[in-house]
C-alpha cells in the first residue's frame, strides 16, 4: 500500500505543538546583538571598499611632478616648461600647477605659516597631471625622459605609488570586516544550535508523543524552524535598527573630519539596501540551522 504522508500541520496547530515563548528566552536579544554587530562590520567593509575604489579611480591615472630647485625663478621656469611639455604629450588629459597658496596650506602643519608670503625653506613646485590610462612603469619612464629634457630638476611619481601602503591597509581592513561578518554568522548559528538543542531537550516528551502518533521529522523540524524564525525576525529588526543607528552616528562623526579619503567611503543606496538585507540573511541562517539541528537530533530517535 502506498503511504501518502500529509506533510503539513496547519499553521495554528504547529504553533501549539511547542508552548509559546519556550524557545524565546534571550534568543531574540542574542540575534539582535549579532545582527547589529554584523551591520556595523558590513558597513565598515562596504565603506572600506568604497574608499579603495574611489581613491583608486582618482589616483590610478594621476602623476605628480616636483621641481626640486632652490632658485625660485629657475624653479618657476622649469615648472612652466613641464606644464607645456605635459600638455603636448599624448595621453595626458589634464595638467595644472598646484598654487603656492595650496602648497603653503599643505606644509603649514609641519613648517608653520610663511612670513610675508615667503618660506625660509625652498619648497618644490608641484604639478598635478592626469593621464587617460592607468600609469605603468613604461609610461612613467617615458614621461621622466621627456620632462628631464625641458626640466632637469623634475621628479616624476605616480600618485598611486605613494598611497600603495594605504590601499594595502584598506584592503586588509576590508577583509577583516568580511571575516568579522563570517565569525558573527558562525556565532549566530552556534547560538541557535544551542537554543534548539535546549528546546529539544525540554520538549522531548512532546516530540516523542508526536512521533508515536505518526508525526514526521519534517513536521517537527518545521515547528522549531518557525519558532526560531519569529525570534530571528524580531531580533533582526531590533539589531538592524541598532546597527544602522551606530553606522549613521559613526558616519556623521567621520564625515565631520572632512578628510577626502574618509568621505570617499560614504555608503551608497546599494550599500544601504545590502545592510537592510542582513536581518533577512540572519533569519534564513537561523531557520536553516534550527532545521538541520532538529533533523539530526530526530534521526537518533526511532
Amino acid at each position, binding site marked *: 500500500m502506498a503511504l501518502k*504522508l500529509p506533510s*503539513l*500541520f496547519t499553521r495554528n496547530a504547529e504553533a501549539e505543538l511547542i*508552548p509559546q515563548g519556550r524557545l524565546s528566552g534571550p534568543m531574540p536579544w542574542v540575534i539582535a546583538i549579532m545582527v547589529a554587530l554584523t551591520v556595523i562590520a558590513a558597513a565598515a567593509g562596504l565603506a572600506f571598499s568604497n574608499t579603495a575604489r574611489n581613491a583608486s579611480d582618482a589616483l590610478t591615472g594621476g602623476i605628480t611632478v616636483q621641481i626640486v630647485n632652490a632658485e625660485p625663478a629657475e624653479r618657476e621656469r622649469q615648472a612652466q616648461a613641464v606644464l607645456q611639455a605635459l600638455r603636448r604629450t599624448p595621453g595626458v588629459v589634464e595638467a595644472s600647477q598646484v598654487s603656492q597658496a595650496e602648497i603653503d596650506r599643505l606644509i603649514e602643519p609641519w613648517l608653520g605659516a610663511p612670513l610675508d608670503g615667503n618660506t625660509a625653506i625652498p619648497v618644490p613646485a608641484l604639478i598635478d597631471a592626469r593621464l587617460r590610462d592607468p600609469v605603468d612603469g613604461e609610461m612613467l619612464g617615458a614621461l621622466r625622459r621627456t620632462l628631464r629634457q625641458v626640466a632637469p630638476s623634475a621628479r616624476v611619481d605616480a600618485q598611486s605609488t605613494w598611497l600603495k601602503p594605504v590601499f594595502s591597509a584598506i584592503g586588509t581592513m576590508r577583509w577583516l570586516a568580511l571575516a568579522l561578518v563570517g565569525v558573527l554568522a558562525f556565532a549566530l548559528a552556534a547560538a541557535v544550535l544551542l537554543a534548539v538543542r535546549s528546546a529539544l531537550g525540554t520538549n522531548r516528551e*512532546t516530540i516523542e508523543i508526536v512521533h508515536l502518533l*505518526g508525526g514526521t521529522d519534517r513536521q517537527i523540524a518545521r515547528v522549531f524552524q518557525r519558532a526560531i524564525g519569529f525570534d530571528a525576525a524580531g531580533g533582526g529588526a531590533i539589531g538592524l535598527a541598532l546597527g544602522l543607528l551606530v553606522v549613521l552616528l559613526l558616519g556623521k562623526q567621520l564625515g565631520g573630519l572632512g578628510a577626502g579619503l574618509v568621505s570617499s567611503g560614504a555608503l551608497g543606496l546599494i550599500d544601504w539596501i545590502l545592510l537592510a538585507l542582513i536581518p533577512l540573511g540572519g533569519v534564513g541562517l537561523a531557520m536553516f540551522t534550527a532545521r538541520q539541528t532538529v533533523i539530526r537530533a530526530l534521526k537518533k530517535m526511532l
Partner: protein
Amino acid sequence: MSNAAEGEIVQFDNVGLRYGTDREVLSNVSFTLFPGGFYFLTGASGAGKTSLLKLLYLAQRPSRGAIRMFGSDAITLPRERLPGLRRRIGVVFQEFRLVQHMSAFDNIALPLRVAGVAEREITKPVTDMLEWVGLADRMHALPAQLSGGEQQRVAIARAVIHRPEMLVADEPTGNVDPDMAVKLLRLFEALNRLGTTVVVATHDVHLLKRVPDSLIMRLDKGRLSDPTGALRYPPRVPRPRGDAA
C-alpha cells in the same frame, strides 16, 4: 517470511528484545494478529507486556527475530516510512502521555492534525469524542487540571479519534471506575466491529470475560503462551474475527 500469512495485520516470528546488555525481556515471541481480531495480552507485572506493546506500536525495534506489520517488514523498513505505519495504529499509553501544555481538545485532535486533517474537519469529531467519553465540559482543561480517570479517557479518545486499523492499549481501564471501564470496553468493541484490530494489555481478569470472542495471549517472564493455539505463527488456520462479532 511465509506468504501463507496473507491478510494478517501483524506477524511476530521468534522475536527477542533486550535493553542494553541485560537479559532478554522478551524471548522467542511468535504470534499473528488478524484484521478485526480482539486480543487481550495478560501477564504478571514485569512479564514484558509493555515491551511487547512497544514493539507493536513501533516505539522499539526488537533485538532479534522478524516482525511484519501491515504487510511491511518492520525491522528493515526505512525510518522515513515509520510515520505512515504509526498513523494506522492508535495507542493508549499506560501513563497516558498527554501533551501537558495542550487542552483536552487539542490532545485529542493531535493525531488528526499530525495526519494533516483540515482544522474545519477536526472540531466536530473531537467534540463528539469528548462528549462520548464524558468530558465535553472539560475540553479546555489542561491535563494537570484533570483527574487520573479523566486523563485516561482523553488518552483513549486520542487513540481512537482517527479510526486506526489497530488499537493498542496498555492497561486502559486501570484508572477508571468500573462503569467507565465497561463503557470504554464497549467503545473498543464498537471499533472492533468496524474492523479495528484491538490489542489490550491488562491484568484485570474480569475484563477478559467481558469480551467473549477475544483471544488471549499470556506472557510469562518474556515468553508467550498461547492457550488456544489460535495465535501461533505461522498460523494453521487464519481466523478473521469479523464474523464472530
